[in-house]
């Protein structure tokens, strides 16, 4: 286990290609040799810190001493750098690649259990004769979702983020290398179930698709405004359960529109199929665009 951040091998992001069974690390071998967070850097500087030397040297070292005691002036350096600049840059590379290969990439985001995988299974089944579809699955652990997608016959890779609570652009780029989606295709990226973190990390997708199941409560859009603000479309899933719940669907829509007046909302049931034709029409429109 890494003493610095507590991560273990299991906590490092890895990718499993369900077609070949290959498992690779998101980080390059070079990164792994170096120590994944650059923890090794700067060691030689620390071992020569001035304070440690002050009282240890004898008089024989007078000259060296004087040199070492010279106080350096501290310098302030302006950086003005975006903290997520590296992720944003990698996301733009992904985006450029999607444009060049004419791949429509959609980032599916929701809380755990909202029905992302069920929606994908159904969508793939209904549209796989119309479009070439590939899937990148993101979860902290297990191949469960990727195994479900594989059963539909659709090419899929699973990214296990380990300690991570979201996919980032580097993980997606590594996943794409394994998946190798064809030109003119549709790529679904199923993000880690989490309504907070995935909103912050651009993957290079065309749009974020938010899924909210009506068993979650209608105020989720205002509780997690970043996610619903970042999404272009909101799918209200499990609508078939409406008669059994106290869910106020109009209030939920009102909340979603209050954080994102442009969001398109579709009521669906991935299980029973209601509303899915509107979702498919939206997809077709994105592909034609």
């Amino acid at each position, binding site marked *: 286990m890494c003493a610095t951040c507590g991560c273990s091998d299991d906590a490092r992001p890895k990718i499993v290609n369900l077609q070949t069974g290959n498992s690779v690390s998101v980080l390059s071998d070079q990164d792994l040799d170096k120590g994944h967070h650059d923890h090794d850097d700067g060691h030689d500087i620390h071992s020569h810190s001035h304070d440690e030397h002050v009282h240890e040297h004898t008089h024989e070292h007078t000259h060296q001493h004087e040199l070492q005691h010279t106080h350096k002036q501290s310098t302030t350096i302006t950086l003005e750098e975006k903290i997520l600049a590296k992720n944003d840059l990698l996301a733009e590379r992904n985006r450029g690649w999607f444009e060049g290969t004419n791949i429509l990439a959609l980032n599916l985001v929701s809380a755990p259990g909202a029905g992302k995988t069920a929606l994908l299974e159904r969508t793939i089944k209904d549209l796989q004769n119309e479009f070439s579809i590939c899937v990148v699955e993101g979860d902290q652990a297990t191949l469960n979702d990727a195994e479900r997608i594989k059963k539909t016959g659709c090419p899929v890779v699973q990214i296990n983020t380990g300690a991570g609570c979201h996919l980032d652009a580097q993980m997606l780029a590594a996943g794409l290398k394994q998946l190798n989606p064809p030109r003119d295709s549709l790529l679904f990226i199923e993000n880690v179930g989490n309504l907070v973190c995935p909103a*912050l990390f651009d993957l290079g997708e065309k749009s974020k698709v938010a899924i909210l199941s009506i068993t979650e409560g209608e105020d989720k859009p205002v509780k997690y405004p970043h996610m619903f603000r970042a999404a272009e479309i909101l799918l209200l899933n499990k609508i078939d359960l409406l008669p059994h719940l106290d869910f106020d669907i109009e209030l939920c829509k009102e909340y979603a*529109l209050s954080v994102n007046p442009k969001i398109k909302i579709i009521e669906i049931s991935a299980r029973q199929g209601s509303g899915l034709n509107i979702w498919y029409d939206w997809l077709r429109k994105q592909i034609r665009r």
Partner: protein
Amino acid sequence: MHELAVTQNIVAIVSEKAGKQKVTRVKLEIGMLSAIVPDAIRFCFDVCAQDTLLEGATLEIEEIAGRGKCKHCSEEMQLSLLAGTCPCGSRDIVCLAGQELNIIEMEVL
């Protein structure tokens, strides 16, 4: 806990810019609407900085209040959430400030 990933980015960027110089202070700018909790960054910073050029460095965080502008009537307002309603009734508000996530400066020896 995306603050851990964010803090790892901070340490990586500053380490790269510092070359081999020891970093004594790092100043960040975090918007109050950025979905980042400054205290969580402070918590992660000491851990992420261990055994790097940033070990022992002071972390300063300037928090930027949220500010928005109504796209309908051009009125500017304070925003405490990413969503809001303008006095004119419109909800189409563009965020002008509060989503910053920047490293402003560093001090090196």
